[in-house]
């Protein structure tokens, strides 16, 4: 049996979880789900389409909101009670955190961010390919354990409903949670302001070391505004204090997937590239024709971004007013 951890925020499903459910079906074994906290009981109905046979529901006073230790403890107790061959979650912040917590409690190995799982779930060893370096490098690895704890890298699998829906029969899982684990339950929140974010913007105008200063970003901001987009940057820029880290694209920043990414004065280091490669179209502006960003981009302008960027903005304005 494959047990899939369903991620949710106070009862609203994290769509990323459907990726783990989709991956779970490739084993051909029964797929069961685990929801944590009574706020998630209503999700059972949503899981039928994904082929889930049973939804194990854990209830406890400590489980009213997310807490990594309490959630990890629930997964550990579910493993002891149900002896699944494999436990899957999607490799989000919470997915990786909860399975690591469970693995620590069970003293079992855990593999984060697999993109392919091979072989039978019941074998002693599960072979897989997982990502290193945020996706710049892959690793074939083997995980040997009675229950294999694995996350599936986010976006590695497209979520798809099953050919035959499952019953998704709710089943109460008896858990005993030490009340002291409330110490890591979310204690407060600041809701996000509405608006385009770097991760969801249709256009990103990114600047690198070539921009030269914090003020140098003003023309990039103007171009972004003209196109309904946002400004992004490289780590060289954040390290220099020219932009906030919230604007950083890459392995240790944000992964973007806009329709158009302007990469201005960015060399295209591999750690930047992994954050930008999901862009549909890349236009590189660089003085160096050999720059990695230029050779990987669909379109490029060779030149000084301080001249090229304002010229593009001016041309857009000219056409808009024509």
């Amino acid at each position, binding site marked *: 049996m494959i047990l899939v951890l369903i991620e949710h925020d106070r009862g609203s499903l994290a769509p990323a979880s459907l990726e783990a459910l989709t991956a779970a079906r490739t084993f051909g074994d029964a797929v069961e789900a685990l929801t944590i906290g009574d706020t998630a009981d209503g999700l059972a109905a949503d899981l039928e389409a994904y082929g889930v046979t049973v939804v194990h529901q854990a209830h406890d006073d400590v489980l009213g909101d997310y807490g990594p230790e309490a959630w990890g403890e629930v997964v550990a107790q579910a493993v002891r009670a149900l002896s699944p061959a494999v436990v899957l979650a999607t490799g989000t912040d919470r997915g990786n955190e909860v399975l690591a917590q469970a693995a620590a409690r069970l003293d079992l190995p855990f593999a984060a961010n697999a993109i392919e799982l091979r072989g039978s779930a019941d074998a002693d060893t599960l072979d897989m390919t997982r990502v290193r370096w945020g996706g710049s490098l892959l690793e074939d690895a083997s995980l040997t354990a009675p229950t294999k704890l694995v996350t599936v890298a986010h976006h590695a699998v497209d979520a798809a409903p099953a050919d035959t829906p499952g019953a998704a029969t709710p089943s109460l899982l008896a858990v005993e949670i030490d009340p002291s684990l409330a110490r890591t339950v979310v204690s407060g929140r600041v809701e996000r302001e509405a608006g385009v974010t770097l991760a969801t913007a249709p256009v990103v105008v990114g600047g690198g070391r070539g921009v030269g200063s914090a003020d140098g970003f003003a023309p990039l901001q103007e171009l972004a505004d003209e196109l309904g987009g946002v400004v992004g940057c490289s780590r060289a820029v954040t390290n220099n204090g020219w932009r906030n880290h919230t604007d950083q694209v890459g392995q240790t920043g944000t992964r973007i997937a806009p329709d158009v990414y302007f990469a201005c004065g960015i060399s295209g280091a591999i750690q930047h590239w992994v954050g930008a490669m999901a862009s549909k179209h890349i236009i590189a502006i660089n003085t160096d024709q050999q720059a990695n960003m230029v*050779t990987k981009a669909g379109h490029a302008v060779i030149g000084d971004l301080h001249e090229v960027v304002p010229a593009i903005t001016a041309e857009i304005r000219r056409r808009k007013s024509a």
Partner: protein
Amino acid sequence: MRICVCVKRVPAPGSKINITADGQQVDTTNLGFTTSPHEECAVEAAAQLVEEHGGEATVLTLGPAEAEEQLRYAISVGMHRGVLLATADGEWDPQRTARALTTAITELEAVDGPFDLILFGNESADAGGFQVGIRVAHALGRPMVNGAKGLSVADGAASVEREADAGRETYSLPLPAVVGVKEGVNLPRYPTMRGRLASKKAEVASNQPSADAGGLAEQVLKSPPERTSQTIVLGTGPDAAPAVVDVLEELGVLS
């Protein structure tokens, strides 16, 4: 307050990551090494907390003998002493690493008293295991939250902020606690001349750890399929602007 920061030495590749012929390692010929970025921020966080609250910070690493370079760098930006768990047999799996770190921390605490705070990076830049800090915290019986984008200490508790789909979440962990931080939590400082000198003289203890291997084993490294593109050069300098805007029109992003 007493703080321990656990860091990892990683190579700093440029436009591509090359793999050795046997597929077992990153080919580091001509590469520099650095501290994994999240942990660089963990070091900075520790330096700031000690500046604010007083106390002492220890930087701890498990890795090759050369990782002494990263320990001395951390000392140059505010850590007080370094401890190296020197391995000679390549990369250790996450369970083995966590066991060795737990033993080392327990030994350090037996001598000098408990750490109020142990800091890790959210995940290492190279292996990306997302678990060593969590395992150490559990073994020590301490609360742990990963992914911190904000960290402060007051009244015997660490308050942690982190990003989630719906906004920012806050957590309040009673000390002693363990926190995994993410890049962006602060902007790491550069070493001063005085810091550099201090790091040369500072005490760096070194010993050979031993711990049982865990159940996750690397078999072979591979490069992901590369996206190659026939780049269309639209022109040189500002004269290329109309051609760029033509492309934008074609793509339908000019509304």
